[in-house]
């Protein structure tokens, strides 16, 4: 099923390349599609001779993604899995995301773990926001339901070893969505584009007709939920993806402490790390997105350890020093993306 889906995209791509080749050359224009999806905003910009993708198409892609991956839709595949006693039959989106999630789970020593959902809910970051705080007994009761080793892929079936196992792919689905949209654009013959969903980005080619590189700003962690983004660093990544995970926008406040929405699957408690924001550059957005949370949860030293084991990936980290001031650091290879000193 998964393979067939790729196949369709490929055929469509070949066809559109053929049709566009038959037309006389025109000056490329900028096409922009913006909208809301997955609880946030998206923007697709592409440079082409003619309109090749419509908002309706983009929205229907999001619809199919939601039907598979959205915990906010009671009837989605993921919600059915969570409600199930044992297993569901996966579709292509679901299988792609689960497979990648399991892989990142293994290579980050369990720091990225989609089975953290029961804890996420207990801490009030689930579908329903709660005001109450869980006590240690409640957390303790949930821990046996957590751990991706309790998930098994048996062919196209995703099986749980205990009924209480529930998953949440919000930490990776946005990146995956970016990749799906990017593949769709490429299948339509678009070679120069930027796809952005909720701050996760994939770019290819250049801005036409001027042939300029596409510049991406890395946001400065803002003081509150409403601050307009300010830019700390500008990068250009060529053909690839960049995603950012931050603890600065989604948090709860309790007793003067900010509780991050990123929960440590091992302890069951919100991650209290020095890193405020982790930006990852990788060839695909699903990879970058899967790892950015793990880096945030790993702390500076742990993050660099993960990065050393994954040479295809670079990262930029903004963190709070013990004295409260904010500083940044990056992996050695990140420097080549940086466009301007700011």
């Amino acid at each position, binding site marked *: 099923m998964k393979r067939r889906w790729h196949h369709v995209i490929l055929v469509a791509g070949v066809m559109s390349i053929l049709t566009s080749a038959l037309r006389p050359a025109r000056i490329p224009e900028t096409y922009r599609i913006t909208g809301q999806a997955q*609880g946030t*905003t998206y923007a697709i910009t592409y440079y082409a001779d003619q309109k090749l993708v419509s908002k309706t198409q983009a929205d229907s892609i999001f619809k199919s993604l939601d039907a598979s991956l959205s915990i906010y839709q009671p009837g989605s595949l993921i919600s059915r899995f969570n409600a199930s006693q044992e297993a569901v039959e996966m579709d292509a989106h679901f299988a792609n995301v689960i497979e990648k999630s399991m892989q990142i789970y293994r290579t980050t020593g369990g720091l990225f773990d989609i089975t953290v959902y029961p804890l996420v809910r207990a801490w009030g970051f689930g579908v329903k926001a709660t005001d109450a705080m869980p006590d240690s007994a409640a957390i303790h009761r949930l821990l046996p339901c957590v751990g991706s080793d309790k998930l098994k892929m048996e062919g196209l079936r995703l099986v749980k070893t205990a009924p209480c196992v529930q998953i949440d792919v919000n930490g990776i689905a946005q990146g995956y969505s970016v990749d799906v949209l990017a593949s769709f654009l490429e299948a339509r013959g678009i070679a120069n584009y930027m796809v952005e969903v*909720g701050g996760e980005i994939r*770019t290819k080619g250049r801005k036409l007709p001027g042939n300029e590189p596409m*510049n991406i700003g890395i946001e400065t962690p803002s003081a*509150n939920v409403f601050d307009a983004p300010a830019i700390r660093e500008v990068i250009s990544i060529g053909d690839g993806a960049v995603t950012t995970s931050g603890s*600065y926008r989604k948090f709860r406040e309790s007793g003067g402490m900010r509780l991050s929405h990123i929960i440590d699957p091992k302890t069951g408690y919100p991650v209290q790390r020095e890193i405020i*924001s982790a930006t990852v550059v990788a060839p695909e957005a699903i990879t970058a997105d899967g790892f950015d949370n793990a880096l945030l949860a790993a702390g500076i030293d742990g993050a660099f350890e993960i990065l050393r084991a994954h040479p295809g990936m670079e990262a930029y980290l903004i963190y709070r020093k013990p004295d409260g001031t904010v500083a940044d650091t990056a992996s050695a290879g990140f420097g080549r993306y940086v466009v301007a000193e700011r």
Partner: protein
Amino acid sequence: MTQTATSRRDFIATGLAAMAGAGLSAAFSPAFGKAVRPADKIRLGIIGTGSRGAGLATLIHEMPDYELVACCDIIPENLQNGLSLAAQNAQGYADYRKLLDDKSIDAVVIATPLYLHYPMAVAALQAGKHIYLEKSMTYDIPQAIDLVKKVKASGLVFQIGYQYRYYGLYHRVKEIIKENWLGKITHFECQYNRNSNWRFPVKDPKMERAINWRMYREYCGGPLSELCAHEIDVVNYLTDSRPLKVVGLGGINYWKDGRDTYDNIRTVYDYPHGVKASVTSVLSNAYNGYSIRILGDKATVEILRDKAFIYPEITNNAKGVVDGVTGATIAATTQGKGVEVKFGKPGEADLEPTVFALKDFAECVRNKKEPVSNVETGRDGSIAIHMGNAAADTEKVQYWKPEYSA
């Protein structure tokens, strides 16, 4: 009257005598602070047990801080109603001066029509009672100025019934403003509208003016003093200031039923730094009846009765220099749509704002603290109200005069 109560009153008397020569700065000195010992219930009387007085009595009934030992009202039915919410053998009075004569009473609530606030408050101060005086503070400007002097000289606790100063919602909004969530604030838009004639049923025609005192200038300032008063106080509270001048228009254009207070009034107050606050009351439309919008260059807050929403401005400053921005996901709801302001501590009961105000009054009486809603903030509110009404009456700009707050 119990023995404890007597000795407590004696102590207050001593305190007052000591205060007389001590001047203003010592008004809240600790020596005076033992009038009501923390463990004791505050012995309370209510003057005016109409709709607000009875409402307060109902809340007080549930509070361990008070014992409601006396009520006073000139309408027997209302007095009975008040007494039914009071302690077992509470005293009823038709003459408030008799109630004030009861030396066992520590504090009084005054919830009568506006024109009675000043004479009753002055008499209560003279009787050595701590006072919770309903808003708005006084009927006119000279009374407001004089009451400040009298309260300061008394050393007694004097709180004005602006309960929103005690409500978590407004505390949170003030915090948000301080944290610059709204950016530079330039305007407040306040409205307190209803779609009704704002009258209460009158069985005996002779009682018309006593019951519907809000309709007559002889007794109050109409919608501005009775409704918008809260919002003017809120703007003062949130800006930590008071208006410099005001323009206004008002009229009786809808409810032509013999009233002489406005049935619509629209004023614009000018605050320091060019901040303007429009304050409106319209009695023929109830959409979002009570609302305060705070306009900043980064976001708007809209305060309703018991909730508030933030509407961030859509700013694309950052996008100008780059083609895209990577950052923690911004919830779509924060863009253009309102986000509800969270307030209150987790697990804290969702109480009527007035309960917090009454709790704090008890706290102030016990520990001789100056209330957050005090005689000076009350004066500022009342003067602003009178300036607004005068602006509409005269169709001339009214200015805050230096002697108002000298």
